[in-house]
């Protein structure tokens, strides 16, 4: 496979031309600004995720690309051409709608063939392409069914087939898995990923589910209040978030407020509310600035005895334990009253917990585990 997640990184190549470019795009509805001077590049064959809380403008961005909304300002370029004046029915872009929007008066076959029929393609070719697409989404034998004779998962696959059959330059997916139950959703994620790799198309997905975005996408754009907070690969977003908002939106995090005291190579000192902390990298922060040290709970080690030679070590008392089966989440109250979270994998079958409620424990983490955030 040439297009694996590992070696695919056109955004890092200065010579690469983006397939889609949002150039200072704004969209206002009356007094509210849904999208605010946003610029973004999406590359060919990329699986791109727009992630954010509801109302952050991600759906508006997608709808502008589909042509259902026109930007108030700025340009949207597809292959270098401004598509502002191109109506939705002439854009080489197809959308999979959130509630699927299948035509209730048409069969599965009629739904999937709908787009091809508008292009005046010969009947034989339409049949061939519809059959091929139905085979791809494993819906052979369902051609004559009506949409309301299908299960939720089958409807989702019809919607996908209908949007893919025209071989769009960009496939837009608006919360494609939101209506499925959890188990089906997890299986479908991988199917969607394989489908994208196999067809070599560009996918842009809108989702509020961070797991979905991280599993599926090459790059994730985290959006907040109509702006992009960060665009990066899932790992970068998780390990190097640019702000507290991103750190908190992408997974659980401990945020410890403090002031940057000293910056030396490989050693950054922070005077925080819980004492002196050490990190490896100060990021953009300068000495004296107000910063937050962000530490992911799974990177915090929990022990009864004070560990030897730990970069950061704080004592506290276990106040809550959340048992999730594979991992347990420990809520630890520090002496200063601050609560910290630590997760520990339950690697062995425990009959009795090693660490229980109200136990005195030590939390420790290496300097590389902490991220210094200044925003």
């Amino acid at each position, binding site marked *: 496979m040439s297009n694996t997640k590992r070696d695919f990184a056109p955004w890092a190549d200065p010579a690469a031309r983006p397939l889609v470019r949002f150039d200072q795009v704004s969209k206002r509805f009356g007094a509210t600004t849904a999208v605010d001077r946003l610029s973004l590049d999406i590359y060919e064959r990329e699986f791109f995720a727009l992630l954010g809380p509801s109302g952050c403008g991600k759906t508006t961005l997608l709808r502008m690309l589909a042509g259902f909304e026109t930007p108030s300002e700025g340009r949207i370029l597809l292959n270098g051409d401004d598509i502002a004046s191109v109506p939705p*029915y002439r854009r080489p872009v197809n959308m999979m709608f959130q509630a699927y929007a299948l035509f209730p008066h048409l069969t599965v076959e009629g739904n999937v063939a709908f787009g091809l029929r508008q292009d005046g393609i010969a009947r034989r070719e339409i049949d061939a392409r519809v059959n091929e697409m139905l085979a791809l989404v494993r819906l052979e034998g369902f051609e004559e069914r009506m949409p309301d004779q299908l299960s939720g998962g089958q409807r989702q696959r019809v919607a996908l087939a209908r949007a893919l059959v025209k071989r769009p330059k960009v496939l837009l997916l608006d919360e494609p898995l939101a209506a499925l139950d959890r188990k089906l959703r997890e299986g479908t994620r991988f199917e969607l990923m394989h489908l994208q790799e196999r067809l070599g198309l560009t996918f842009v997905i809108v989702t509020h589910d961070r797991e979905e975005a991280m599993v599926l996408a090459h790059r994730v754009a985290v959006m907040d209040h109509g702006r992009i907070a960060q665009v990066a690969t899932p790992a970068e977003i998780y390990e190097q978030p640019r702000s507290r908002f991103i750190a908190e939106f992408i997974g659980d995090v401990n945020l410890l407020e403090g002031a940057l005291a000293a910056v030396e190579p490989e050693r950054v000192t922070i005077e925080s509310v819980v004492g002196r902390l050490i990190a490896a990298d100060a990021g953009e922060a300068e000495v004296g600035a107000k910063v937050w040290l962000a530490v992911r709970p799974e990177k915090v080690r929990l022990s009864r005895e004070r560990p030897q030679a730990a970069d950061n070590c704080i004592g506290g008392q276990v106040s809550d334990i959340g048992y999730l089966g594979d991992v347990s989440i420990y809520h630890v109250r520090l002496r200063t009253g601050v609560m910290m979270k630590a997760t520990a994998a339950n690697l062995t079958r425990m009959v009795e917990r090693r660490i229980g409620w109200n136990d005195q424990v030590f939390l420790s983490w290496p300097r590389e585990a902490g991220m210094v955030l200044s925003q």
Partner: protein
Amino acid sequence: MTTAKPTPSRRGAQRLVILIPYLWLLAFFLVPFLIVLKISLSQTAIAQPPYTPVLDPAAGWAALKDFFAELSFANYLSLAADTLYLSSYLKSVQVAAFSTMILLVIGYSLAYGMARAPRRLQPLLVTLVVLPFWTSFLIRVYAWINILQRDGLLNQALLALRLIDEPPVWLATDTAIYIGIVYSYLPFMVLPIYAALEKLDESLLEAAADLGCPPWKTFWLVTLPLSLPGVFAGALLCFIPIVGEFVIPDLLGGSETLMIGQTLWTEFFSNRDWPIASAVAVVLLIMLVVPIVLYQQFEARQIERGR
């Protein structure tokens, strides 16, 4: 004690609830229909009631046999023999069909505009469509006489706009009948179509556009097919009463050709020929039941397809 099994009295109450509509239909539709059917098989008589034979259950078996022997289809044969009735029926169906078509065009456009209007305006628009019902139907038809007179509002307006030099005659023409019918029945066409269009999921139209449909084609391929149940309901709600319409053609129409409602009225009240009038009514009913049955079959098919 189990709670799942209804007690006998509760089951009886449930049956009664189901029975009520049937009893209603029996008392106010089937029985009157049978009476009319019976009168249509009788002969006129100068008597009270004005027909023979009269059913007298107290007279015994022999009288009952005589009663049935006297019934005949003679009235139906005379309906078929006289072209007056045939032309009345044809006229009625023709007026009903043509005005239903006009109503469809105007009603669909109105309903479409209403369904596309801003959400907060829609209740007001529905009220405006229903508003004429607050005035008596008869008064509204009389008002049209005033408007359509030689020196009425319509001619005055046309003269003022210099669209005509000579005021044309509107009253006592077919045009006046069509104007009156279209005006009176428009809400019955608009409301079912509006109900169907208002339910239409906006994202379906976006999906069609996304798949390459220009707006006019989206209308043809998505909006219209999905609003067909409303179109059929509206067409039936208009067509059936228009066929039997009496007031509008009587007040606004001419006297050359009569609609079946007028013929029926004449037979019943002027000629006091109850049997012929009843036969006219029975034939009309059969004519109207056919499209209803057809529509129900269409609807059943729709539901079947949807399953």
